[in-house]
């Protein structure tokens, strides 16, 4: 057994760590090598923008598994291993140190990296991006009461940071180049509902305006906008999207299409190499297109399936995407792909809680977005998630009627 090549996982994030665990759960007895380069054991990222920045949770508390777990499961975790290249002909990965590790199957779970600002002043001290525990540590230091924080980008990361900064007593200005928030994620009506809440909480959100440059000598003192306006601020936090970390795959001649292109079993064009999580783009049976998702649930679901397929189970992936965010006392849950819809039906599930059902041109439910109190939105979003999996057509009037229970629709669909 010692001579048998290991399962090698490049990328020790949530997806990589969970896949390592799942390989063991599915009976793999050989070696497992998990390669990361953040210097810390795999951790959960969702709390970084919320509980960690609020000071309610330490970064140490985000760790996925303790040291004993890796020892007991015989997972060789290396947290300072930078991979230089993948040698597909020899079926090995070569580290920057020159050390080579042979693989039986290789999983690339390198995730994504924040897009960087390219405007003048972008490299000044006081400009941050949030992706890692280290980033969260720096940003938490900056969120002192009374300071002014300029958030660039009104996507989920930007809005979560804005909500957290408000809770910490900061002044917050959000600058978004597009005409509205969350343009890639949800229909306008959903974004507007959320933005209204941010404005009530005191966030100054500005749309359709770009950053011309960042002002400061050694350190940020403000942001100059394309419309001529200036925003004096103490720091800048940019959440302007991420780029899949495909460099290793590309250099090795593995197909890339937005992310690393995999089939519906998460296998690349090399049968010994798989990719999963934020880094890969995969064909989705339900939506009949290739997509790449950047969220916890996808990384979690991919990890489970890819581990089984590295063991040649040949299972296809067709989970309905599901995503959550927490802002102020609101939970946001999104099932499916609301952005693929042509119309939206609103269900008022509480005083300020709403579930927005997204229908495509054939009336098929393709997404649902819940915004508000978890107890007033979660069940409806959950039922929608199951209906989306069945490509169900649901009567809009029924969806809009808050007194109509939706769960019985699941039974009806089965029979």
């Amino acid at each position, binding site marked *: 057994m010692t001579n048998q090549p290991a399962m090698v996982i490049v990328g020790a994030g949530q997806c990589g760590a*969970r896949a390592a665990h799942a390989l063991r759960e599915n009976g793999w007895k050989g070696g497992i090598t998990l390669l990361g380069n953040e210097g810390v054991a795999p951790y*959960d990222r969702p709390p970084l923008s919320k509980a960690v920045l609020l000071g309610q949770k330490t970064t140490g508390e985000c760790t996925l598994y303790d040291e004993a777990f890796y020892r007991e499961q015989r997972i060789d975790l290396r947290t300072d291993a930078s991979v230089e290249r993948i040698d597909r002909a020899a079926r090995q990965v070569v580290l920057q140190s020159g050390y080579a590790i042979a693989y039986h199957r290789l999983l690339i779970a390198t995730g994504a990296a924040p897009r960087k600002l390219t405007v003048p002043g972008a490299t000044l001290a006081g400009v941050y991006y949030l992706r890692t525990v280290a980033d969260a540590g720096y940003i938490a230091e900056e969120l002192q009461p009374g300071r002014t924080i300029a958030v660039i980008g009104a996507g989920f990361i930007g809005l979560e940071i804005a909500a957290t900064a408000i809770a910490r007593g900061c002044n917050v200005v959000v600058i978004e180049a597009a005409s509205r928030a969350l343009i890639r994620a949800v229909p306008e009506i959903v974004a507007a509902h959320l933005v209204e809440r941010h404005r009530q909480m005191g966030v100054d959100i500005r749309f359709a305006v770009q950053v011309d440059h960042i002002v400061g000598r050694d350190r940020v003192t403000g942001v100059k906008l394309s419309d001529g306006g200036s925003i004096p601020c103490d720091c800048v936090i940019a959440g302007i999207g991420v780029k899949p970390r495909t460099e290793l795959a590309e250099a090795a001649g593995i197909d890339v299409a937005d992310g690393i292109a995999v089939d519906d079993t998460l296998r690349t064009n090399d049968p010994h190499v798989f990719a999963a999580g934020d880094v890969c783009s995969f064909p989705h049976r339900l939506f009949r297109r290739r997509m790449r998702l950047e969220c*916890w*649930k996808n990384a*979690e679901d991919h990890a489970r399936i890819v581990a089984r397929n590295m063991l040649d189970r040949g299972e296809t992936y067709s989970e309905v995407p*599901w995503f*959550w965010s927490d802002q102020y006392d609101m*939970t946001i849950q999104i099932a499916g792909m609301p952005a693929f819809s042509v119309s939206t039906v609103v269900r008022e599930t509480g005083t300020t809680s709403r579930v927005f059902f997204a229908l495509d041109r054939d009336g098929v439910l393709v997404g649902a977005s819940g915004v508000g109190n*978890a*107890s007033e939105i*979660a*069940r409806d979003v*959950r*039922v929608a998630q199951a209906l989306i999996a069945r490509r169900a057509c649901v009567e809009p009037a029924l969806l809009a009627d808050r007194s109509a229970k939706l*769960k019985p629709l699941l039974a009806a669909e089965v029979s």
Partner: protein
Amino acid sequence: MTVETNNLKWVVACATGDIDEEDVIRFDHAGASYAVYRIDEGFFASDGWCTHERAHLADGFVVNREIECPLHQGRFDIPTGKPKSPPVCVHLKTYPVRVENGEVLLGVPAKDPS
């Protein structure tokens, strides 16, 4: 109605018909909050709050014999409280349940353990 036996206090949580099949309701008693379930195998009860973050499991979704948390879709096995799906990883406390005369009774600790 309340009956005490073996350090357990049996309290009426609801009528059997108050819970739909494959569903869950919230029951609050003496400062504690519980989730009471009805599944194919019968009635069960657990702590109401998820062991991960602040969310009430009665707002969750019953799938076969598992309860899925409304906040992050972590799952527990209803009869045993065993964590079945991340992000939950801490066991959920369960409580004995009896059905008598169309009522669901919950066995809660008779007094605070000291």
